[in-house]
C-alpha cells in the first residue's frame, strides 16, 4: 500500500482516523462525490465542501475473492474476503471490503454500515452488513 496522499485526499483519510466518513459536496451542482478531487466530476465546480456521511448504504455489487492472484503474499492469509461496491445512502459509490471472511449469504441490496478498520497505519472505511 503506502500510496501517498495529496493535501486534498489527506482530508478524507484524516477524517477516517477520527471515525468519520467525509466526502466532498459540490456547492455548484449540489452533489456529493467520491473519490476526493480538486474539482467536481459532474460540473467542474471548485466550490467544494466536506460533509460527513451517515456511513450507511447498500451493497451495489460484490465479489468473494478466493485467490490473491499476483503473488500478493500479504493477502493470502485473508482470503476468502469480500470486495464490495457500496452505494452510500447519499448517492456516491465506494469500492470497499466487508469486515471478516467471505460469507455465502451476501447479496446485492444488503444494508451495510461503515466499520473503520486499522491497517498498516491507516484507518480504512470497511463496511459490515446490518440486519
Amino acid at each position, binding site marked *: 500500500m503506502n500510496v501517498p496522499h495529496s493535501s486534498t485526499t489527506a482530508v478524507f483519510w484524516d477524517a477516517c482516523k477520527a471515525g468519520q466518513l467525509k466526502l466532498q459536496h459540490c456547492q455548484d451542482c449540489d452533489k456529493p462525490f467520491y473519490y476526493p478531487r480538486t474539482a467536481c466530476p459532474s460540473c467542474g465546480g471548485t466550490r467544494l465542501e466536506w460533509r460527513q456521511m451517515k456511513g450507511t448504504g447498500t451493497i451495489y455489487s460484490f465479489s468473494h*475473492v478466493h485467490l490473491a492472484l499476483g503473488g500478493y503474499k500479504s493477502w493470502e492469509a485473508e482470503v476468502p474476503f469480500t470486495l464490495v461496491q457500496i452505494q452510500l445512502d447519499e448517492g456516491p459509490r465506494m469500492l470497499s471490503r466487508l469486515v471478516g471472511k467471505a460469507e455465502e449469504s451476501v447479496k446485492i441490496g444488503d444494508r451495510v454500515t461503515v466499520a473503520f478498520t486499522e491497517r498498516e497505519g491507516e484507518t480504512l472505511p470497511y463496511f459490515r452488513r446490518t440486519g
Partner: protein
Amino acid sequence: MPKLNQDVVIVGTGETPVGRLHGVSGVEIQAWAVRNALADCGLTLRDVDGLVSQQPYNLPNSGYCLTVAEYLGLRIPYCATLDIAGTATSVGMLQQAAWAIETGHCEVAVCVHGENSVTGRPKDTHGFALQIFAGGEEFEAPFGPPSPPAHYALYAQRYMHEYGTRQEDFGAVAVAHRNHALLNDNAVMKKPITLEDYMASKPIASPFKLLDCSIPVDGGGAVVVMSGKRARKLGLKGIRMRSIVERVTHNAMVGGVAIDELGLEPAAKELMNSAGIGPEDIDVAVVHDAFTISVILMLETFGFAKRGEAGDYIRAGHASLGGKCPLNTHGGLLSQGHFGGFLHTLEIIRQLQGKCGRRQVEGARIGMVSGGGGIFAVTSGMIMEGPAQ
C-alpha cells in the same frame, strides 16, 4: 459521424509465437513482430516511415516508440507511443497510423505491440505491472490486492443481477473460445474443455472461476498500414477501415460507472452507423475477452444478442465457426493468450485476407473489432472491409 479517409489500407500482419518467450526482451519481441509483418507484404524496414508502438505493461519505459525505432534503425518522420488501455489500444494505434498517412506525415506506418509480461516481469510482481494497470491505487489498494479479476467480477455480479445472466452463460463463452483456440496453432491452450470442466474449475473471485479468466502470455503482433496509392503501385490488396470509434467513461473500478452508463452502447451505435451497417452485416468479429463477462456484455450491447440472451446465442452456435457471426476465431485472450489485444485486430485482418486456414470464415468481407480497457473504462471499435474473396 467521424469519417475515415477511404484511401488508407492495411496490407500486412505479423505475429510472434505466444507463450513463454524465455530470454527474449520486450523490444526484441516488438522488432520480431515488425519483421514478420513487413515480410508478410513483401516490404523491408527501408519502406517504413511511420511507427506507432504500445509499450510493454510489465516493463515500460518513457519514449517507448523511440526505443523501438532506435532498435530497428529507423530514422523516420512519424513516431508515437500509444497506450489508451488494454485491447482498446490496438484500434487506437491503427487510427493514429491512418491519421498520419492521410495527413501526409508518412506513407507506410507499422503499428506494433509486444511484451514478455510472463517471463520478463520484474521480481515480486505478476502479469501486468499492476500498479501501472489500475490508476486508482489510493482508493482501491487498501481494500484488496490490485486484481483485475475481482474488479471485473464486480461488473459480472451486477450484470447477473440486472439481466439474469447465469454462470452457465459464462461457461458457454469459455468453451466456445477454447474450441476456436484448438484450430489455432499459435494458441497456448491445447486441451478441449466442456461446461463440466468449467463448472469444476477453481473459484478465483466470484462469480469467476479459473476458466473465466484469460491466460497471460508473452507475445507480439504488428500491422502494416499504407496509403492506397502506394498499395496500388505495389499491387497489394488492402483491407479498408470503414469506421473507428472510442468511448471513455472512467479508468479504474473506483470510478466505475453503472452498466447502462458504460461507453459500449454509444460506441456500438456510432460504429455501425458510421459504417452504414448493422450487426447482421458482419461476417466475423473479435471482441475483448479478458474475462468471460466482457464477451457477454459485448454481444448484448453490440446487438448480436438481446440482453440476458448471449448465453443462448453462443449455445446455439451463432458465435462459433459456421455460425451467424463467428467470434474470436483465434481463441481470444481466454484461450489463445493475453498480452495487450493486438492479436484480435490481426485476426480480423487475416480473416478478411482469407489467410486463416482451418479457422477461415468462408467469404468473410466485413469484420468488426471491439476492444476494451481498464475495467470497462474504454470501448473502442473498428469495422473493416476486405476485398471480395
